């Protein structure tokens, strides 16, 4: 083994043990534990000016990011947040959580009636009351203020239970506490917390989240018709102290319905989550007292981003629970149903469906709990991973539920078994809290951000890009290899359980392929991509979205690989009875993900693919001009 490779492996070994030490230091005792709220507070406390979003990002980027996702764009294997699979609950928290799981599960099994809630298009009154008494409305509010003071990991476990039973209720609870009053939890002053948190924790007052740039009305506002306390984002004129110029910046407010001027429209009729109230909310001449500003005046965008970021893990946890319940139904059907002379679970096509469903659930669950643990450990750079978990979870849940209906055949289509209701409920999860399309662009652009800056070192070459592209790509490849040692100096051995070493290798290879393409593309498009990131509302590149979409998919696949490697490694090391099964799930995922990444990245470099993008653009343009399809049927009649 060449000395530089050895040195790199050693360095990786050191790094991973350092990160293990780091993680041990982070393992919370009740005194040291950093709640997500405090972690976010740490972000808020950093000295901030009212300058553009980009310079804010620059400052945080200067401290080396511990995010795995940020690392892969630079061809780095950043293991701090992902290996070993984090375990953050202390004895007391574990014990407490165990005590909570039973009663919550029982309530949803015996009291809540999801079918009824769906047909009534609201949660039954007695159930709602029961939920309030249960304490479900203030899970993360500190106990001194009337809540349960759960950390993110504990919250995730309970969110799983709600997701297993009723997504409508899940959205009501989530819109209330995961985003509705999260702002007060994260950014509220002591006075604001004491005023609002006890009320919202008991469910006496319901919370909702307003849009971030519509001043007068909010469309599709969850809990809009029933919430009494809103976190609202509105444009406010801010005077720049230095220049005296007046700019419009977003500020976050806590708005009470009782302030007057808050009205709402009729509840919207929806495809799913019918029990959840969705309504337009109008704010007309609402007088908001100065002490109701949340965070800094003009700092609303950061408040919004942090709230959404902070709440995303909840969705992955919820959907992991939904998938668990759906898979149980599918397995039950496959086990008992006889068709064509055999129980259908003996047929290969059914076996593939069930296996794929289990793998998707395993990945989502692993992401959810890794993310919640990272947040509990006090890590602050997890926004890309949070976005990835939302994209992955919502798409996985849709596929799993859809396949369950397929396995059940005609029965799946009927109302009675309840699976069609879940499919209807799930559809919105790919849309709200940031559409998966926008989030993909976010993942790609945010990931490229740091890398783009690094490449400014290649400034001279960029002055004559056309002449130097070949040189630059070669240069980039060389840089990559130099940084990582000869050949594949990056390695997960020593970090990943030996039984998973093949999957570990696949992951590292995939990472290299990914990073190489990122670098090449950034050199080609750098100016355009980076300049787009300077605008606070992240108006995305029109032409480059085909590329960004595929880069995001690569990042998602890579994070998924690493997450299951980490979890399966831990299970194998700890000798769990299901560890061998987890190994199969992990290996299967890695085989397909690696192949997908290879194909995606190869495509991005190929000419036929570029032609494809050009075709898409032209086809779409023609369709717009036509007002629909351009072609008529073959009969031309």
């Amino acid at each position, binding site marked *: 083994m060449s000395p530089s490779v050895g040195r790199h492996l050693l360095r990786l070994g050191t790094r991973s043990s350092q990160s293990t030490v780091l993680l041990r230091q982070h393992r919370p005792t009740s005194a040291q534990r950093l709640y997500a709220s405090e972690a976010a507070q740490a972000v808020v406390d950093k000295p901030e000016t009212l300058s553009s979003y980009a310079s804010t990002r620059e400052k945080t980027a200067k401290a080396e990011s511990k995010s795995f996702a940020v690392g892969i764009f630079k061809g780095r294997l950043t293991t701090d947040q992902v290996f070993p699979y984090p375990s953050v609950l202390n004895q007391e928290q574990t014990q*407490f959580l165990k*005590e909570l799981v039973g*009663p919550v599960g029982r309530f949803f099994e015996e009291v809540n009636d999801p079918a009824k809630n769906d047909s009534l298009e609201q949660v039954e009154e007695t159930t709602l009351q029961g939920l309030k008494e*249960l304490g479900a409305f203030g899970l993360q509010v500190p106990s001194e203020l009337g809540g*349960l003071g759960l950390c993110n990991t504990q919250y995730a476990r309970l969110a799983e239970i709600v997701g297993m039973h009723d997504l409508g209720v899940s959205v009501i609870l989530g819109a209330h506490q995961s985003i509705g009053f999260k702002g007060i939890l994260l950014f509220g002053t002591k006075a604001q917390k004491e005023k609002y948190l006890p009320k919202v924790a008991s469910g006496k007052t319901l919370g909702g989240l307003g849009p971030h740039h519509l001043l007068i009305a909010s469309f599709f506002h969850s809990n809009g018709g029933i919430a009494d306390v809103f976190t609202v984002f509105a444009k406010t004129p801010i005077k720049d102290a230095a220049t005296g110029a007046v700019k419009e910046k977003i500020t976050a407010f806590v708005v009470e319905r009782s302030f007057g001027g808050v009205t709402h429209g009729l509840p919207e009729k929806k495809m799913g989550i019918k029990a959840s109230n969705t309504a337009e909310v109008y704010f007309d001449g609402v007088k908001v007292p100065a002490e109701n500003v949340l965070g800094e005046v003009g700092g609303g965008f950061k408040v919004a981003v942090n709230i959404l970021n902070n709440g995303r893990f909840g969705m992955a946890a919820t959907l992991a629970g939904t998938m668990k319940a759906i898979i149980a139904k599918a397995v039950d059907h496959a086990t008992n149903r006889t068709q064509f002379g055999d129980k259908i679970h003996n047929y290969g096509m059914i076996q593939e469906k069930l296996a794929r469903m289990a793998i998707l659930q395993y990945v989502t669950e692993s992401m959810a709990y890794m993310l919640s643990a990272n947040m509990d450990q006090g890590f602050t750079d997890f926004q890309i991973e949070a976005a990835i978990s939302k994209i992955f979870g919502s798409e996985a849940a849709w596929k799993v539920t859809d396949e369950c209906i397929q396995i059940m055949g005609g029965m799946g289509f009927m109302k009675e078994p309840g699976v069609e209701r879940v499919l209807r409920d799930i559809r919105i999860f790919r849309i709200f809290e940031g559409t998966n399309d926008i989030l993909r662009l976010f993942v790609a652009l945010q990931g490229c951000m740091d890398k783009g800056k690094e490449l400014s070192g290649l400034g001279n070459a960029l002055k004559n890009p056309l002449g130097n592209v070949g040189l630059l790509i070669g240069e980039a490849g060389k840089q990559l290899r130099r940084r990582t040692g000869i050949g594949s100096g990056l390695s997960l051995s020593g970090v990943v359980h030996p039984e998973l070493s093949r999957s570990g290798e696949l992951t590292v290879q995939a990472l290299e392929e990914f990073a190489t393409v990122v670098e090449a593309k950034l050199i080609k498009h750098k100016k355009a991509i980076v300049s787009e990131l300077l605008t606070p509302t992240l108006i995305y590149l029109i032409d480059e979205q085909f590329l960004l979409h595929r880069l995001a998919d690569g990042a998602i696949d890579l994070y998924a690989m690493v997450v299951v490697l980490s979890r399966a490694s831990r299970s194998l090391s700890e000798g769990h009875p299901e560890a061998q099964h987890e190994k199969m799930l992990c290996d299967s995922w890695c085989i397909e993900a690696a192949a997908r990444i290879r194909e995606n990245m190869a495509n991005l470099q190929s000419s036929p693919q570029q032609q494809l993008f050009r075709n898409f653009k032209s086809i779409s343009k023609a369709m717009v001009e036509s007002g629909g399809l351009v072609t008529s049927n073959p009969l031309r009649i």
Partner: protein
Amino acid sequence: MAELRALVAVKRVIDFAVKIRVKPDKSGVVTDGVKHSMNPFCEIAVEEAVRLKEKKLVKEVIAVSCGPAQCQETIRTALAMGADRGIHVEVPAAQAESLGPLQVARVLAKLAEKEKVDLLFLGKQAIDDDCNQTGQMTAGLLDWPQGTFASQVTLEGDKIKVEREIDGGLETIRLKLPSVVTADLRLNEPRYATLPNIMKAKKKKIEVMKPGDLGVDLTSKISVISVEEPPQRLAGVKVETTEDLVAKLKEVGRI
């Protein structure tokens, strides 16, 4: 102002919804990793005691359980339902397997005297062994009157009126305190432990003690020889006519 104090005994059993599997060595059923909860009849007993406290007829409700460390989870559930404090009579896991009604009755009798309680509530039987003996044995050891299979309980000063469900119908008896009452299904519907109450229960005390501290000997004169699954139900046979049916029944010696 009520001065009455109640002791409620609760048992940790395999959850009723779990599919029971017998261990391959036939020594018992599989308990490792299996979901456990409070015996449903014990829940009803706790609920009744807590309701009496809420009506201010009882001053203090103490929850007790005998067994290994995990019993504390069951005691915590009782605390979350409203009991004031708990007592865990710790028995190591290996010995706990041979804990039967007589041993538990001895423990409860000693505790009832030590704590000077006026009422001892239990569930009528546990859903794992279906013994239906512990309450009765404890009353015998204490020489206290007993009201078993209670479907309604009314405190009357220093007496307690118990309506019992028996085979012939309902029997109402009046007992002098102190007495033992075992709960039947229709006595009440237990409340759901709410999460805030579970949180408050964390602050309530559980006293841990050993059977030796109470001077109780736990040796059992009973040993389990084997535990087996019930025989598989055989498939039925279809016949065409009533004559065939009679012939078949004669064949198997049923008529």
